[in-house]
């Protein structure tokens, strides 16, 4: 699947939550777009990702 613009091999059965964790992101500091649509936080869940999925995860850094 595509992760942040790059073709990436992920394990069979990888879930949304699992991918976020495996990439080291903190769920309270990200915004996630899946196949062009924003993913609500309530849906960072155990939905399994597929080969055709395109995910963008933006991690926030503090200060403004």
């Amino acid at each position: 699947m595509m992760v942040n613009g790059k073709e990436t091999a992920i394990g069979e059965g990888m879930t949304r939550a699992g991918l976020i964790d495996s990439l080291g992101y903190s769920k309270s500091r990200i915004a996630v777009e899946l196949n062009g649509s924003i993913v609500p936080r309530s849906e960072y869940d155990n939905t399994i990702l597929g080969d055709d999925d395109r995910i963008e995860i933006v991690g926030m850094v503090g200060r403004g």
Partner: protein
Amino acid sequence: MRIVLNGTPADTEFKSTSELLNGMCPGGIAVVNSFTADADIELSEGDSVFILNKDHIPSEKEADLLMSARDPSRIRSKLRSASIGIAGLGGLGSNIAAMLVRSGIGRLVISDMDTVDATNLNRQNYFYDDLGRPKTDATEDLLKRISPCTEIEKHQCRLTPENIPDIYGNCDIVCEALDSAEEKAMFINTVLEKCLDTIIISGLGMAGHGHSNSITTKNG
């Protein structure tokens, strides 16, 4: 010929800026099609001309009009009709607010729950006599000093997923200028989920000291 004079379509017999100024404002300055006329300029059909009389203090409405003399007219109306939100009035937000008002934005919605303290003064758009004041009040006063005609809506409050749509839902564009990563993520997610007609702009991580040539940009 038909020109746009001080923002209003007008017929004129004058053929050049020198004739126009001699007739309407001796000693004045003409701004033609967004550029100050340093020398005499021949006028053409459709030209946009502003006349500036430096001996006259304009009314608030006149000043509001003259602020946009250097903008192409197609931009002026876009800016004036825009409603822009700014979340947070710190290092980013307080400066964004002032520059947007100077740029001619017609309406700003601002929020911050904090008060001004001395550690803010190195970068935030506040003054010594603002210390202790709510940032929303200090910012509103500053913006009104820049341009009395800009509409300001202020909210001194902590932003939550519940109040963000009420406060910012009718903004064309909202600038995320909050402090912590968690607040930024909460705000961005809420706007993207619940304010579908609002474009969000966010800047992250622009801080530090170093050589300016080391700054790079890339797309994607």
